């Protein structure tokens, strides 16, 4: 059976090493030259339950996102039968441990294996028994990987090398056992099931997720202060920055709560560091007051908010785009801010970098809105996307002692001096002649709390004026795909739906294009209005209940959406979902 792209799902309980197995497989295929996308669906528990990991790859076409339909399932638990048998494509293979044969009966009909799944090959393998003979049940995942490679006629050498690299530090015994397990697994396959179509090797030497990419951008930008409190799916940002701490001089403070974390980064930003925090919706809610503090006091800082399913604890480990309104509007009063929304791993890097420049330049809080799917799915990508050439550090208006003197009156520094672009020069503590109070109160130019009306209006206007300059320098939204006059359909979406929509374009029979919204505040209203009003047929696609971005667009442009594809079950929609919905609209 020929295949351009293969999608492998490994299902089992939490704590069974499913994620590591998927990663190992993905890495070895990537090293062999494949384009790879690895995604996980996990429950909010540490042991038990049912989790799965999907590795989708191709040696022929770039793989941008996940696919709900799979070619091979490796079942390490009973739940996998009920959950995944029906997800197999015609001609797919269902590999399961022999001991689960009873479970198979429960799930389906009555073949020799106890299951009647038409067009699917059922393949019981003694994974556990084989593993135990080699030294322990722990090796069963490796046996399964051997089976998978065998089914595809893939050489074992890449995975064997991965095993040596990864487990080398654990000793020769572990490496040996794993390699034997892999070979034993492949030995269970008597004939190759899938013939993979091949093209040139992909130059996609890096495998990383959105959080990783964001961290690379932050480090490149000189971020050296992080304060955060763990919350899925943002936690890996704090882990990564902490791990790089010693090497790169990054102080990562695990704070007592999100309120503290946010106030700490405001303090560090005021002191002159490039500072950031990371959290999800619940933690961001706690930060709200201090985000406003940064806006009012005009302190640069960066907040990565990775969305998960809300409200409240919601589905803590699943994906959604439901915090858009929260990050846009979290506030007492009005203040300038920037909300950036990367759509893929490359944009996580570039926006992660830009966020710090823009925060410094406009002396505002910058929010980078991610979601679980983008934060945790791993893609293969060329290292060229993470270049530093051409990038510059722009710290905005930071004054030294003589600059401070020039901006002083009678020896008192004007921290909030009037200026055309709304941005005043600031001095960092330690700078002589720059002493002043940075404050959460409304103040005059000197930072002295005053309550008269004229001053309030003046200062408010000064701060909000920053948004004009900011909007002018943000890239305008562009259509991706067919040209505006050719496209029969224009999809509108944001964030992690980018690669999914891009895949839809490659699968549709009609010409279509995508309008991705990358900045929610400030908003390119005029450009977006022009694009949408000229479009033939507009379909809003969002991973939330109410079509939040659609609402934002309507507010800003008057454009109303008649057709919407929305999903809010905590699992990212795939291209097939969108196309099916499209057909029934």
């Amino acid at each position, binding site marked *: 059976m020929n295949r351009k792209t293969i999608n492998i799902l490994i299902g089992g309980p939490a704590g069974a090493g499913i994620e590591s197995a998927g990663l190992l497989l993905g890495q070895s295929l990537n090293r062999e030259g494949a384009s790879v996308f690895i995604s996980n669906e996990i429950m909010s528990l540490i042991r038990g339950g049912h989790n799965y990991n999907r590795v989708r790859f191709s040696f022929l076409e770039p793989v941008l996102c996940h696919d709900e339909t799979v070619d091979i399932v490796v079942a390490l638990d009973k739940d996998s039968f009920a959950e995944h048998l029906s997800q197999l494509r015609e001609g797919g293979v269902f590999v399961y441990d022999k001991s689960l044969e009873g479970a198979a009966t429960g799930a389906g009909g009555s073949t020799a294996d106890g299951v009647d799944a038409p067009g699917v090959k059922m393949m019981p393998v003694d994974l556990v028994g084989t593993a135990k003979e080699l030294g322990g049940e722990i090796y069963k995942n490796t046996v399964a990987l051997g089976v998978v490679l065998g089914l595809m006629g893939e050489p074992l050498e890449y995975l064997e090398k991965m095993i040596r690299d990864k487990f080398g530090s654990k000793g020769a015994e572990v490496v040996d056992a794993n390699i034997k397990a892999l070979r034993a697994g492949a030995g269970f396959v008597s004939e190759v099931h899938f013939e993979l179509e091949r093209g040139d090797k992909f130059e996609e030497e890096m495998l990383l997720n959105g959080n990783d990419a964001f961290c690379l951008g932050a480090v490149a930008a000189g971020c*050296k202060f992080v304060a955060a409190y763990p919350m899925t799916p943002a936690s890996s940002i704090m882990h990564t920055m902490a791990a790089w701490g010693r090497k790169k001089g990054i102080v990562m403070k695990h704070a007592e709560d999100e309120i503290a974390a946010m106030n700490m980064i405001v303090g*560090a930003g005021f002191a002159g560091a490039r500072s950031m925090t990371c959290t999800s919706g619940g933690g961001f809610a706690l930060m709200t007051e201090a985000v406003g503090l940064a806006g009012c*006091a005009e302190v640069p800082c960066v907040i990565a908010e990775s969305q998960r399913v809300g409200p409240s604890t919601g589905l803590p480990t699943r994906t959604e785009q439901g915090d858009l309104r929260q990050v846009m509007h979290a506030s007492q009063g009005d203040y300038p801010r920037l909300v950036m929304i990367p759509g893929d791993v490359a944009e996580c890097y570039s926006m992660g970098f830009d966020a710090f420049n823009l925060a410094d330049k406009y002396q505002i809080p910058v929010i980078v809105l991610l979601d679980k799917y983008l934060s945790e799915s791993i893609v293969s990508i060329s*290292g060229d996307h993470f270049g530093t050439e051409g990038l510059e550090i722009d710290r905005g208006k930071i004054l030294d002692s003589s600059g401070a003197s020039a901006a002083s009156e009678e020896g008192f520094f004007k921290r909030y001096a009037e200026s055309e672009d709304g941005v005043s020069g600031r001095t960092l503590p330690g700078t002589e002649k720059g002493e*002043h109070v940075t404050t959460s109160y409304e103040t005059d130019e000197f930072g002295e709390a005053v309550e008269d009306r004229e001053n309030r209006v003046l200062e408010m206007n000064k701060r909000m004026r920053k948004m004009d300059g900011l909007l002018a320098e943000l890239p305008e939204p562009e259509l991706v795909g067919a040209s505006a006059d050719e496209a029969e359909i224009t999809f509108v979406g944001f964030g992690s739906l980018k690669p999914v929509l891009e895949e839809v374009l490659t699968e549709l029979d009609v010409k279509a294009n995508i309008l991705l919204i990358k900045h929610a505040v400030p908003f390119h209203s005029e450009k977006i209005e022009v694009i949408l009003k000229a479009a033939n047929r507009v379909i809003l696609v969002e991973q939330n209940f109410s079509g939040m971005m659609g609402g934002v667009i309507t507010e800003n442009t008057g454009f109303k959406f008649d057709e919407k594809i929305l999903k809010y079950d905590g699992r990212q929609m795939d291209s097939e979902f969108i196309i099916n919905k499209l057909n029934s609209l």
Partner: protein
Amino acid sequence: MTELTDLQTKTNPNWCPGCGDYGVQAAVKGAIVKAGLKTSEVVISSGIGCGSKIPHWVKCYGFEGLHGRPLPVATGIKLANPELTVMAIGGDGDGYGLGMGHLIHSMRRNLDITYVIQDNQIYGLTTGQTSPTSEKGVRTKSTPEGAIEIPVNPIELGLASGATYIARGYAGNLPHLTSLIEGGLKHRGFALIDVFQPCVTFNKVNTYEYFNSRVYTLEDDESFVVAGPGDPDARCEASRRGREWGDKIPIGLFYREERPAYGDEEAALKESKPVDVPDKVVDIEELKSSFM
């Protein structure tokens, strides 16, 4: 050398005449001068409340943030630039109410921060509600039938939480308060300085008269020795004195301990500090290779 006149600000305080905060302000200024600090290298982080307005009236760097949050801001400042002398100052509601969690964690971290609490046992700026240090039974706007809770004891809280310099001052004894704050500034670690700060407008119980007739200084009491962790008896004594209340109330330094400050043990601060932002993009090639 910094002189008192260098600390003069553009405006003058607007506290009620006779407010204990004038004493705190004078003591903070005096301590900065005595400790020989440059105004450009001192940062005062405050919260919100009457007392929290203090950064406006001590000329150095100031950050007047949110109610209850002077410590996290101070933490960010100190960890971003350990060369600065960082103080946090705020009211009893600010520090023992909203900010209580931050306080306990800051003490166990032993951040090198001097924290002065203007403890007037009342919420001043919000016109007189009960505070975490109000005495049981006190009638305020929010407790018209009398406060039901017992007050927080800052000295015992400090001992239990790992502060390494624990003191109590009185705004009515300026030389003593000044030297306590000076000691805190010189101490490498977390200094908790609770200050009796009469609120002449809303607290009609804990007045100057109340304190004048009750306070005695530990420094003048020969039977009291300040001791650190190596002396469990003295530590117990510090705790006992911390509980002393009624006819006699002690002020002074209760406890001191030498322990590495948080920043001293932070690996990332060994070679640089976060405020040293490079003017060129940071090289990430090595980090990138970890994803290959």
